[in-house]
């Protein structure tokens, strides 16, 4: 892949991330001004607000990072090398990426939906997702040391 193509990939990612930031901000604005009080007092709703806030912050950081990368050819090449590094890919595969991340997101989603009916199910699903992600990160750190 040449760098021009990679630039297009990054620009496409920036468009998707910008849309997601707008969705997160929209959710936060709704939750602040228009959400009913009964909803505002629930733990599930507070969790969703926290998730939307942190998601928006992370995506905004990535957007800023990609803006800087796109303006510097050396940084662009280094980032491309980093993303396509075979050792990094091997470490991620051994640690269970991307399956663990996908399953964790599905657990969080299921937890948020189930939370409106049963708070215990919500807590259990979120705890399971967190445990799964911590295990994945621990494995990644282990393989980063040994590979």
């Amino acid at each position, binding site marked *: 892949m040449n760098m021009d193509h990679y630039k297009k990939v990054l620009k496409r990612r920036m468009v998707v991330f910008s849309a997601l930031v707008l969705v997160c901000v929209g959710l936060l604005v709704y939750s602040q001004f228009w959400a009913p009080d009964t909803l505002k007092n629930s733990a599930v709703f507070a969790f969703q607000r926290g998730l939307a806030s942190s998601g928006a912050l992370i995506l905004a950081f990535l957007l800023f990072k990609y803006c800087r990368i796109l303006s510097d050819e050396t940084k662009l090449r280094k980032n491309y*090398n980093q993303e396509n590094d*075979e050792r990094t890919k091997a470490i991620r*595969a051994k640690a269970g990426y991307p399956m663990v991340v996908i399953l964790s997101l599905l657990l969080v989603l299921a937890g948020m939906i189930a939370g409106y009916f049963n708070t215990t199910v919500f807590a259990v699903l979120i705890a399971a997702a967190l445990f799964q992600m911590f295990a994945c990160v621990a494995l990644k750190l282990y393989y980063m040391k040994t590979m």
Partner: protein
Amino acid sequence: MTFLNVSAILNAKLALHLSYLEVFDIKTRIRELRKERKLSQEQLAYAVGTTRQTITSIEVGKYTASLALAYKIAHYFGLAIEDVFDFSDIDDEGTDQ
């Protein structure tokens, strides 16, 4: 076939590939060649399209480079792959010819 199934198959294939790579302990002359040419790990990594950490791991023998990366490194130094990577351990095991 669902997306999850495709991901699982790809992960399994990569794991198989990795387990195959771990069988061999291949020594390299990368550090020596770098020193001769006064190159840093960062510069070599940038030139061959990888990261400094990967070059470090290959040099200390923690990670075995793929054929593509081994070719790129050898090509960068203007040498053949067998001049950069020592395959004597594999040769000792014997192959059917």
